[in-house]
């Protein structure tokens, strides 16, 4: 969930939030603790009449007592009686949201030791098969990979973020294991996913359920720790919104291919940075196109990539694992 508050010149303070999830009146093990605490604080504002909460589809507002078990998504508009008081209250929300920003940046930073640098997303095979020979081909290739990532993997990220429970995560893992039919891609996914889970459990200690889920799943052996569901799960437990987590997944995919391209000498570091910015608008379009879909809609939209990535094992000499 994202909460940002602006102080405008007008007497209206807009607190826009996107809280998607089930809120229960009682805490249970599967409930996101942070989410619960945050909303409880928000409810005080609500009761004091400083906040007006509206469900997206409805015209009228809803009362805090109706809360129970429901999905809230919308815009809260608070009439500013006392700007100063609200500023004080805003400051108490800000640190939590600010801290979330730092966690988000850390999750997306390439120095996070998840081993992403070992995978080229089929780039190395594509170069050796002469499908890519110059930076223009590279740009096209990256766009195709992002398109395919969106169509195949974003639904898994979405589901795991929106419902970050162990039961749902295990279900997604089984399904993705059967869906990633390309052996090379499947192995890359599990190696990155298990590394990411290990790192997240050690780093984000304020979320004990991460370590708990990881330990329980390692023991059972039924879970492969695929990258997309694990990424979505971590984002969901951290409190990132589904829009942010899906965009973030597309971002790290783009980041990793471009990084692989520089190491394969297809483009220089500065050229890579320029290309990354140029592709950003396409990446945003693709994220919007493929986000918020159900997992049974997951599909490949560029089947040639699967064939090419599978050829990685036949390469005579290679730099990357995949």
């Amino acid at each position, binding site marked *: 969930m994202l909460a940002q508050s602006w102080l405008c010149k007008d007497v209206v303070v807009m607190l826009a939030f996107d809280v998607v999830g089930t809120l229960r009146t009682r805490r249970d093990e599967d409930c996101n603790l942070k989410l619960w605490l945050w909303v409880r604080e928000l409810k005080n504002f609500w009761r004091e009449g400083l906040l007006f909460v509206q469900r997206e589809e409805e015209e009228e507002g809803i009362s805090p007592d109706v809360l129970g078990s429901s999905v809230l998504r919308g815009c809260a508009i608070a009439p500013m009686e006392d700007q100063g008081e609200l500023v004080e209250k805003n400051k108490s929300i800000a640190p939590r949201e600010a801290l979330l920003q730092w966690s988000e940046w850390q999750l997306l930073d390439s120095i996070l030791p998840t081993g992403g640098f070992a995978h080229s997303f089929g780039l190395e*095979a594509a*170069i*050796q*098969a*002469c*499908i890519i*020979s110059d930076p223009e081909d590279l740009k*096209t290739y990256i*766009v*195709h990979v992002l*398109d395919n990532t969106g*169509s195949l993997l974003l639904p898994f990220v979405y589901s795991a973020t929106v419902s970050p429970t162990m039961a749902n995560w295990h279900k997604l893992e*089984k*399904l993705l294991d*059967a*869906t990633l*039919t*390309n*052996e*090379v891609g*499947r192995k890359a996914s599990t190696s990155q996913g298990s590394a990411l889970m290990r790192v997240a459990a050690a780093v984000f200690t304020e979320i004990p359920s991460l370590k708990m889920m990881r330990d329980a799943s390692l023991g059972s*052996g039924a879970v492969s720790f695929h990258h997309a569901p694990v990424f979505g799960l971590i984002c969901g437990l951290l409190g990132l919104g589904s829009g942010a987590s899906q965009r973030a997944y597309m971002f790290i995919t783009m980041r990793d291919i471009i990084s692989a391209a520089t190491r394969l000498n297809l483009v220089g570091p500065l050229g890579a940075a320029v290309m990354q910015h140029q592709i950003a608008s*396409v990446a945003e*379009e*693709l994220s919007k*196109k493929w986000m918020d879909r159900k997992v049974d809609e*997951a*599909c*490949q*939209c*560029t*089947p*040639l990539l*699967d*064939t*090419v*990535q*599978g*050829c990685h*094992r*036949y*390469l*005579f*000499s290679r730099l990357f694992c995949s």
Partner: protein
Amino acid sequence: VGPSKTDAVWIYTITYGGGLVSGDSVSVELDIGHDCTAVITTQASTKVYKSVEGKCSVQVLEARIGSNALLVIIPDPVTCFSTARYSQKQVFRVASTSSLLLVDWITSGRHQSGEKWDFQLYKSSNQIYLQGEGDQPLFIDSVVLEEGTTAAISERMQGYQVIAMVVLLGLVLIMIKMHCLLECRPKLKQIQDQVQENVRKMMAEQLHHSGVRGHNKANSGHSIGKPLFLASCSTFGPKFEKKTSQGYLKVQCDPVAQKARHKGVGVVVRIAATTTESVYKFLEHQLGGMESLLGVAPYRG
């Protein structure tokens, strides 16, 4: 179809008018009994005509394969004409010791008329589930090619005119008695191994040459082409949890009762080629070993 001593049933699916028209919907249900062998094939490629009023042509196949049974699906490719919309879904529910050979492929259209990847929509979904204990998904593949805003379908295909997928699945039931391991060889194991080896050899050679030529690009000044035929193999299916140093599977089990485990070894081959003929040749060559099981080798002639 073949010699009478081979116990395999060949089924040809035929449509009136030799193709699917916009809005056509075809639904087939198959039930392959225990120990039976059935082959589904076509007389010619499935042509999908142009879409009228945005309607889609749909084909759905649902098959159940019994124990020790083999289902072989070896059609000619689907060819979607300009502006066509086509969707197909094939769901297979397999039992322990079932075998399945599935070929699913598509060409870019009527090359002579210049139609190359000129259709509006092509959707193909292939799903294999293991029956029992809640239908465990073994293989789920969905391909969607839709003419849209981001990249044209022809651009995604990078000059290739045919894409194909071959799935070879052979399940084995491992009987565990005391600490011994009895394994039955599935029907398709030999072909699976052979195909993987052949593809590996072919592609390793091609890529090695491409790599060498690419290296000499600066010197020779020749333009380097992509391989005309690109293929890669992957295995899929459930894995064993434990393997001891001796290679035997040791499982804690009641010495009196027998416990069975499933081992699914599937192989999927993905192909991209510039000509339909090259894929026919590849299929004929790789699947030749099926003759003994089916009476006639697939794609011969």
